[in-house]
């Protein structure tokens, strides 16, 4: 592909520039790229301005994040951050980094060092619990929608998963 600026040399780089909030993309050769970069059409921000915009973006992103819901039980992240209470096993997976941040503040360490029950198939147990949580959330929805056929099917699947979980007793493999 030829450079979209000089139309002579081969384009090797995809260049994007934001002007007035619009993204303009071009395929450029290395020579044209140097020229464009030394004379951008956009504007440069001072470090203070960049900092203010950066903080605003972080704040907006945190507010947006705090409104996030656990995909399974519907507990809002802001509730967890305020009350330190979770709704289900999946909350731990949905909000992993945020929960780690809370634990850093309210707990004395980041790992459990006490009594342990050696359940076999750790990873499989985790996946089964996540699946169970999801199906339990789903069954609530289908019962609400009066779709009893799907509810019966889901109920059987839930029972099977519960049996599977119960089969991994401590000390058994």
């Amino acid at each position, binding site marked *: 592909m030829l450079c979209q600026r000089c139309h002579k040399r081969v384009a090797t780089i995809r260049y994007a520039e934001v002007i007035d909030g619009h993204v303009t993309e071009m395929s450029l050769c290395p020579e044209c790229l140097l020229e464009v970069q030394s004379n951008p059409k956009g504007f440069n921000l001072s470090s203070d301005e960049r900092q203010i915009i950066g903080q605003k973006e972080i704040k907006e992103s945190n507010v947006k994040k705090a409104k996030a819901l656990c995909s399974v*039980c*519907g*507990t809002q992240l802001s509730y*967890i951050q305020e009350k*330190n*209470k*979770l*709704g*289900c*096993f999946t909350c*731990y997976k949905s909000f992993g980094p945020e*929960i780690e941040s*809370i*634990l850093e503040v*309210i*707990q*004395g*360490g*980041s*790992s*459990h*060092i*006490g*009594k*342990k*029950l050696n*359940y076999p198939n*750790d990873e499989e*147990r*985790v996946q*089964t*619990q996540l699946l*169970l*949580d999801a199906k*339990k959330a789903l069954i*609530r929805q289908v019962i609400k929608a009066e779709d009893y056929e799907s509810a019966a099917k889901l109920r059987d699947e839930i029972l099977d*998963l*519960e049996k599977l*979980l*119960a089969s*991994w*007793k*401590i000390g058994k493999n």
Partner: protein
Amino acid sequence: MIMKTWVNNKPIWWNEEAVGSPVAVLTVGTLCRNVAGFFFPLRMNEEEKQRLENLLKEPIAQLDGVSADDYLNFAGASPRENLFLSERFLVSYDLLSGIGHRGAFISNDQRFSIMINAGEHIAFRVIFAGLQVESAWELLNKMDNHISKSVDYMTDPRLGFLTSDLNLIGTGLKFFTLLHLPGLAKTGNIVLWEKKLQSLGFYLSGINTGPPPDARPLAIQKHFIEQGFHSLSGSPVTVGLIETVGSLFAIGNKYTLGFSEAEIIFSLSHTVNEITKAELDARQKLLSSSRLTLEDIVGRAEGVVHGAKFLEFAEAIELWSALQLGFSLNLTSESIFSLPLSLLFELQGGHILVNFSSDDSNTVKVSLMRANKFREILDNKN
């Protein structure tokens, strides 16, 4: 029917001597667990709560000391009748004021209880007089091992036992010891311990009367709820040291993650022993520097207990504290040598309320009965 048995039967720990430390009133241990494959109680619907309740009842009923008949279902139960269970720390106030399928097994000797569908799926609770942290853990661990053979706990390879409340994650284990520290309170040295304990991962807090903050209201006259130690029945509510009643303080572990059960048990026992020494020293110093003042405090307390017709709870606890201090320093003129542990509980609103029928109770009668109870103990009539 069951309730009547629990009211009439005195908890075994009421008769225990103050073991371990003369200033430790009692030790309460709570171990929380959740069952894999269920939402936490916060998000469970009634059907799921009932399924979990049924799943847990059978293995719990096989434990020594409880039977299937010892399960108290709180769904639909009268909170008025059950208020005294929270005052005895056998159930948490949250369980009492909660909604939906929930309840507790309470052992015949009231040494332990197992709450279902309170904040967590399972909460094992044990109570011992004095400082008996190791015995408390031994019993908790035994019950936990038994139940873990029948149900699958929610765990994580790194975070340990998963809980709805992030303050419990890891070991799920919370201990607190109730201490009577009038010496350290009067000399002001109690504040030095607060900072020291913080660095060890423990809290030292005052004791509040009444329900925990943000608790759901109960269908009982507020006055009766405020006349009890309900804020200690769940995760103890931390209260400023100077706000405490009767120079009573709670010391307990702040963290459940990053500390093993053995570390918590050792540190709590060790720290309480240190505080005990400091308290006894402080009492002796007060005796040598301010004997007359102490005699005045104790003498006044004796006078009030002998003469008062009505006593409010907080006032009664202050009198209890002054007399306990008097007994320990031989400053009283009484025929008994100490106050029984039971008195601290029997002065509470719910304990007095069970003696009345619902139509017959009012705040004046409760205050009258409290004053009578205290006087009888001091007159050695019980």
